[in-house]
């Protein structure tokens, strides 16, 4: 078995195959990074909505809370299928990548909004009260007082979530997005040893994820030190 794998290596690691893998890795990274960036923006909005106090906005607050609770409790795979089928009704020409991206965004919005909220909550309430008494608006409180202090608490877990999601995007292969995992299936179907292809794919994920994980740890330690 080892011999067959070894004999396949020169045929496997050809330039076209490496380019193919590289592009797939790029798509994997893109899915996670772009999806989480949009998800962060939307999650931030949800977290802001949850900060409001106006009784008229109560339905909006309930909706924001319901969104975060619901979409953290449905498997990414199920979301992916839902988006896949639903999008055929709404926009039949949507690309597979777009479908995967929408799915990542839906889920990451929920998780990241929870992370942003935890960050907001980390800012002592008394400062918010002081600002309220000085007639700061809800938005002024967030952008002048809460957000500038909360970002240090938000960034490390937010970044860690994005890195973690790199692995979850492997499921996008299921709807046919040619990211890393799908590439593995294609190469394996071309007759290469499954050990070689999936071993390589595992390694490729590791190469994407590990340095970013380390960077996340570093960020966490750096930001934990109290400096302005």
């Amino acid at each position, binding site marked *: 078995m080892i011999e067959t794998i070894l004999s396949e290596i020169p045929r496997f690691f050809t330039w076209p195959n490496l380019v193919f893998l590289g592009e797939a890795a790029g798509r994997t990274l893109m899915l996670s990074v772009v999806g989480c960036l949009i998800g962060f923006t939307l999650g931030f909005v949800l977290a802001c909505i949850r900060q409001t106090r106006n009784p008229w906005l109560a339905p909006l607050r309930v909706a924001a809370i319901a969104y975060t609770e619901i979409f953290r*409790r449905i498997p990414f795979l199920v979301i992916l299928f839902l988006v896949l*089928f639903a999008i055929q009704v709404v926009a039949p020409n949507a690309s597979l990548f777009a479908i995967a991206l929408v799915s990542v965004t839906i889920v990451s919005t929920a998780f990241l909004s929870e992370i942003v909220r935890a960050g907001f909550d980390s800012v002592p309430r008394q400062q918010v009260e002081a600002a309220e008494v000085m007639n700061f608006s809800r938005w002024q409180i967030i952008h002048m007082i809460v957000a500038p202090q909360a970002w240090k608490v938000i960034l490390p877990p937010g970044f860690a979530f994005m890195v973690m999601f790199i692995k979850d995007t492997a499921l996008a292969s299921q709807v046919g997005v040619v990211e890393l995992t799908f590439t593995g299936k294609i190469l394996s179907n071309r007759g290469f*040893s499954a050990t070689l292809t999936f*071993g390589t794919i*595992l390694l490729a994920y590791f190469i994407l994820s590990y340095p970013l994980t380390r960077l996340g740890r570093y960020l966490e330690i750096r930001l934990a030190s109290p400096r302005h």
Partner: protein
Amino acid sequence: MAYTFQFGQAFIHLPYLLGGALLSLEIAFIAFWGGTVLGLFGAYTLVYGSRLLRSIVQGYVTFFTNTPAVVQIFFLFYALPEAGIMLSSFTAVTLGLVLNSAAYLADIQRAGFLSVRQTELDAAETLGMSRLQMLRYVIVPHIARTIYPPLSSFFIWLVLGSSIGALYGVEELTGRALNIATSNLRTIEIFLVVGGIYIVMTLAASLSLGLVGRHVFRVRGGLLR
């Protein structure tokens, strides 16, 4: 754009889907306990093991936490046969999830061990307890309190994670949904119902785990996390 929902078509299949939900929980259970036991050895090694063993376990944890469970299972499912080992899809999925969980759970339990060292010392100084008493009244409750919340969230994560069984034809909740979807046009409704079942399932799990945590392990904080 004109889409009329027909949930009747999905609700007919509810008993079948609930059977799948049971299997999802089963997979999550096996993965959780298998991973906890393996992870306990891992955690013990990470804290008290020799240098060599430590780096082996650390390597295992680093590798498994930085690669997707799906691909790990692909590897088990397609690569192991090349070495003459055939696994059923259920075995491949549960084994993959056990190996994957072991890595995460080793990390969680390691944090528990580390948190004890300090309290252990403090407690030993203040009271004239025997080692057994200390274990019973100080160390175990302390570890439990520290690791219970992350363990509970990890279990919830596994309930959702068990859905990848569907990719290998395991008939857990998502797998059964796919089965129906291929023979039925009401796919959106079916997956909405399935999503609802996952929500109910994880909410029930969170709530009961939260209650147990609060009353048995004296974990503070909200019930839902």
